[in-house]
């Protein structure tokens, strides 16, 4: 069983999947827009960065500061990327969920 510090919270799980969807390095605004468009989830920028920070501490995500640009008022982007450890944890979480879903019938009446 995975250690508690290595387990994925629900939003952490979603964020790692969005990072995989965006393929390669991605930054805060892109992540927020993908979340909104794909799963209609409107998270605050504060909650997004707090979760990304936790994922970095767990070693599932790495980040890198980019160049400042005009459309951001001269401020730099921080690019995030999923690590090999993050991919492995995601894979494990998927397997666990598939195992738990086996034999579950939501239409079954009690």
């Amino acid at each position, binding site marked *: 069983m995975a250690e508690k510090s290595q387990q994925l919270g629900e939003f952490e799980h979603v964020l790692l999947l969005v990072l995989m969807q965006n393929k390669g390095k991605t*930054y805060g605004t892109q992540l927020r827009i993908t979340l909104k468009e794909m799963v209609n989830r409107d998270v605050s920028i504060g909650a997004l960065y707090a979760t990304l920070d936790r994922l970095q501490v767990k070693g599932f995500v790495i980040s890198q500061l980019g160049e400042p640009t005009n*459309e951001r008022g001269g401020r730099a982007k921080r690019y995030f990327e999923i690590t090999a450890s993050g991919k492995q944890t995601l894979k494990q979480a998927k397997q666990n969920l598939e195992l738990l879903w086996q034999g579950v019938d939501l239409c079954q009446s009690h």
Partner: protein
Amino acid sequence: MPEPLNYSPAPAPPALAEKLLALSLPAELREQMLGDLYEEFQLYQVPQQGLFKARCWYYWQTIQSIYVYLNKQKEGVMGFIISAIVFFAAISMGMWFGGEFSMFFDIPSVILVVPPALLFALAATSVESMKWSMKLAISEQLEVRVKQINGAKRFLQVLGNSAILMSLITTLIGAVAMASHISASEFSSIFGPAFAVCILVLYYALIIKTLCYVAYQKIEFRYEQQD
């Protein structure tokens, strides 16, 4: 002759919200988060929702983000602001229970305490130290030299102590004046109001001293952490 182009620059996010956010976010996240919000405000929110709704959106993001980082920023500006709000709310409640608010306000008493204490503090330190004391009390200024920290601490110490000393001196002057001028026949009607005004300077000085003490401790705590 060609018509001049009707050029209007893209609207900027609300300055107040940006300022609040900048003050409450950790220094290492400030740039990217403000940049992300700036980009989304100009490229998505304003074109899709209009300026008013985009501004509301920005304020909502600000409130939510401040809430998220409030607990993470123990030494941050929000902690100091909230303490100051609670402090003034407690004082206001005390004044409200005490009777009329107006009896706690006396301009000559303020003049007797605040300007001299400020001048003493500036004379003992510098304008630069005063600026640093305010910056360090209300912001996450991480790149700061030991000399600046010491200057800020010295300024707060002198300001708080000078306010107390000035109030003691002026209270004594008031007491001497009362004792010299009040006759036995008018004692009961005059002594009460005169004494109240006389000790108001002490009240103002204690407020200044308390704020200076908290700011001093906050700076010292950060300084210890830097070591």
